[in-house]
């Protein structure tokens, strides 16, 4: 294919642009204006996660203390107070779920656990420092057969159906998958 002057000029310009691009990438743009480089996305994420963990520890420390002192009722009220300031925070639902289950309000506790996982998926994440997989697995081991039996005996009870659906959701999240 014969190339005229226009083609040749265009090819030369293309080669020049390609060369300039490569040189720029390789040199890191030393001759240009240096923009301040902030932390990378990964660093920012890591900082955010650590700040989040520290924030949760600090905010919920009073609740943990009350639970350690075997004061679940007061812990629940403290959680109510925290929820006024931090609506939609998954950790409130998580701790509340644990308390309710221990106190015998099983279906309500399961509902809170599920709400917690939906708000903060870290609780089922193997890699996360916030993960509560063991707690959930223990819950499934004890509550699932119990609720299945009760649901069979009371097929019209919507609370039991809902609690079973919630448990199956937890089971699914613990099993993993793309979420």
């Amino acid at each position: 294919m014969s190339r005229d002057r226009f083609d040749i000029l265009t090819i030369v310009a293309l080669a020049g642009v390609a060369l300039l691009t490569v040189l720029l990438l390789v040199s890191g743009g030393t001759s240009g204006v240096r923009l301040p480089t902030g932390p990378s996305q990964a660093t920012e994420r890591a900082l955010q996660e650590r700040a989040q963990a520290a924030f949760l520890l600090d905010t919920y420390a009073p609740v943990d203390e009350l639970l350690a002192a075997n004061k679940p009722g007061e812990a629940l009220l403290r959680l109510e107070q925290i929820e006024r300031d931090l609506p939609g925070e998954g950790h409130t639902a998580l701790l509340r779920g644990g308390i309710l289950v221990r106190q015998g309000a099983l279906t309500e506790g399961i509902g809170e656990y599920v709400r917690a996982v939906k708000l903060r998926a870290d609780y089922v994440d193997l890699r996360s420092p916030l993960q509560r997989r063991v707690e959930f697995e223990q819950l499934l081991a004890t509550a699932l057969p119990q609720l299945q039996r009760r649901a069979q005996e009371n097929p019209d009870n919507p609370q039991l159906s809902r609690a079973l659906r919630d448990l199956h959701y937890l089971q699914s999240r613990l099993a993993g998958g793309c979420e």
Partner: protein
Amino acid sequence: MNPVQKVSSMLPNPLTRPVRVLFVILCLALLVAAALVACDRTVTRQKMRIGYMNCNSEQETVARFGPLTTWLSQQLEIDFELVPVDTQEFTERFNAGEFAFTHSNPLLYIILKKEKQLQLLATEMRGRYGARTAGSIISRKDSGILTLDDLRGKRMMFGPQLAPSGYLAQYNLMLDAGIDPERDLAYYAIPQGSFKHEKVIYSVYFGQYDVAAAPSLDLETMIREGKISADDFNIIAESPIFPYCSFGAAASVPAELASRFRQALISLTPETTVAYQGESVKVLGAAWIDGFDPLVDSDYDLLREMAKKANMPPYQEY
């Protein structure tokens, strides 16, 4: 031929045979529908009464449960009448046959169950414990009263005597700790008038009393509403959870109707509305209820044990 007739004669006759037939069918259908609607109006529906225990006042009871009663009437095709009843008169008026259905606290349920074989229909869900609740003993944060033992010699405010989460549960907590409320307190009182549970909590908050028997639900609600803070109180003790208020049916109510009533209650969702006094009202929202759970009678056994220990009805001995 006048001009109108002239014009009419030029237009195609719209009343062709098929159109005429259709017109007649439509008229007949309208007549039948009208007759059915008229018939519906003239059929007399069964009338029944539901006795609602007043928590605070008659007006509050009517405002809360009016929409629910109207909705139940629509669902069950029975004209239900809402009857507000004071707690102290509840058993007497029920025994007199004033109402066939009840909405009451769990202590009244177990009394009426024992005495009159009241059928349990469904239990109300409200607050964190769902269809259950608990009672707490509280003191002010700066009071230094931290344990049940510290209650000795203190002034205590209780809720109404027939309130399981405002009296019975706390009475039991004290008995279990070896404290006799009749002897070991300086004195105890029960507030007068309405909103007793809130008054109980405020009595400690404002230092009028050292400790109080506070329903956990009321504490939760007042914190959520910002009336008090969790920082304001020590929870000295909390009872185990027990069932909350419930609907019941007299033994004379046919099982089939009782079942339909129960099904209607448990089918309610927060989105269910009813036309009430010219507005579309959310049934559960108006009643301050989250839903209904069909608990069973054995779920009330814990409360029965509490009542026996505290020598409360229906187990009191003189």
